[in-house]
């Protein structure tokens, strides 16, 4: 059922050696490959068959669900709409990710639109990795969208990673935070060659006592381009922070535009942004520990994107 390429992609994007335990839904080339549900986590196709609805029962603790997507069909652009309904007081991990294997001249792509409704006091950790490989020269496109709605006291921790091989990415993250909710987003994107990636983020702190922290780490190699936009809008007494760092190597190009909008006098919003080459004192330190220049660069990038 899973061939060698599928297994390699699953290992890379979802750390899976074969099929996972517990609830999962594996989508291959636009179709359901395999699905399992558990006592607390239900997965079903949505009404028009364009995606899945994952429903997690209230109070579900320490369970996880894997929903990887793999693509290896030339010329296919797969669009999927997935909904996640996380019941009150649950504490779960969702592992998504898309791996593309391109073996021809034809383009391949995937757009995953993921909507999360996180119930009162619930916690969700969402891990998403995007990766493309293969000998083909077809353009590989990945356009993920996440929409997050946090109810009172809910927490969402999002780890979003694009680790290589993706020619074009338009990444969109939107979130609306209820009272006393917490959102942590860490996005890591590596581009090289002539790749392009755009990340557009809009976070609305609607509830009193809500908190959001968005961290972006970009590495831009070769002639690649990355643009990062983040808007944090505060409608209530709240705290929000944006931290965006970009390392430029070779001829990379980067626009970083953090934007803070306070619509309440007790809002506290901050941002820090930096774009630049690897600091020479970091390189010298690692070289003084016996690493070569290239080893030092790799180690610094590896840590930066960790």
């Amino acid at each position, binding site marked *: 059922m899973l061939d060698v390429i599928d297994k390699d992609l699953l290992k890379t994007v979802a750390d899976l050696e074969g099929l996972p335990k517990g609830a999962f839904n594996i989508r291959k080339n636009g179709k359901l490959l395999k699905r399992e549900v558990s006592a607390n986590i239900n997965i079903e196709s949505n009404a028009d068959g364009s995606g899945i609805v994952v429903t997690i029962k209230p109070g579900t603790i320490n369970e996880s669900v894997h929903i990887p997507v793999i693509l290896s069909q030339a010329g296919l652009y797969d669009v999927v709409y997935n909904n996640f309904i996380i019941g009150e007081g649950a504490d779960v991990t969702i592992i998504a990710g898309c791996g593309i294997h391109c073996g021809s001249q034809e383009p391949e792509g995937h757009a995953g639109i993921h909507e999360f409704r996180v119930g009162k006091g619930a916690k969700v950790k969402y891990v998403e990795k995007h990766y493309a490989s293969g000998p083909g020269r077809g353009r590989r496109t990945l356009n993920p969208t996440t929409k997050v709605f946090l109810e009172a006291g809910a927490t969402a921790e999002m780890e979003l990673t694009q680790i290589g091989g993706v020619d074009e990415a338009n990444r969109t993250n939107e979130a609306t935070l209820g009272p006393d909710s917490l959102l942590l987003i860490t996005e890591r994107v590596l581009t090289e060659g002539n790749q392009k990636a755009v990340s557009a983020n809009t976070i609305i702190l609607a509830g009193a006592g809500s908190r959001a922290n968005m961290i972006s780490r970009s590495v831009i190699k070769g002639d690649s381009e990355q643009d990062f936009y983040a808007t944090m809008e505060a409608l209530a007494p709240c705290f929000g922070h944006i931290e965006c760092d970009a390392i430029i190597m070779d001829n990379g190009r980067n626009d970083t535009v953090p934007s803070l909008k306070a619509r309440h006098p007790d809002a506290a919003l901050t941002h820090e942004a930096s774009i630049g080459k690897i600091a020479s*004192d970091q390189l010298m330190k*690692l070289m*003084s*520990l*016996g690493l070569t220049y290239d080893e030092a660069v790799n180690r610094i990038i590896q840590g*930066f994107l960790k």
Partner: protein
Amino acid sequence: MLELKDLYFSVSGRNIIDGMNHTFEKGKFYGITGPNGSGKTTLAKLIMGINQVSSGSISFQGKEISSLSITERAREGIAYSFQQPARFKGITFRDLLAMAAGTDDEEMLLALLRRVGICSLSFLDNPVDAKLSGGEIKKIELATTIARNPKLAIYDEPDTGIDLWTIQPMVRLLKREQKEHGTTTVVVSHNRAFLEAADIVLMISEGKLVYKGDLKGALPMLNDLSVCNYRKCVGDKDVGCYR
């Protein structure tokens, strides 16, 4: 074990290191001192290869190293502790220590912590980032230098950011390393505790080596040199030296 011959380092026609000659003997503890801007740190950086010599030679254990990279000098057995250590994103103390020691074996890393006198194990997984205090990052810097098991260890102002109560234990640590591992130790410092611990004090002024010997002999000269090295500070409209 380390020989400097006719060493010059110039920037924009000005000699920062101005014809220096000296031989560092194996297993000795050297304190390098002198006024601000005299060339102490520059000399240390020339030895490590962070700055490249303008002319002259540096030989280490009989091998000319002045054209070698930082990496090559590190692999020859020279370790360097930076005055202002680098801070990273996503790299922990454990990562740096493992790189320095060439192993990520837990037992070996714990043994290193004991050797340098860091007792808190949780400290090992601290990111080496901007959140660390000046004292904490200097301890990490010291530990990664010692973890190299160097033949020659260079410490550039190791007491920067360190509280008063930590300086003596730090001196004792460097002396113990010298004694137990035969480490040739070079400490750039203004701090009397390090200079008292030194077998030989080297004093640098205006890029020249102006004294070598014990601290006692250096003190009158130090007092004289440290008054003022801004020679233009003599006119009626100048504020004059606060001393």
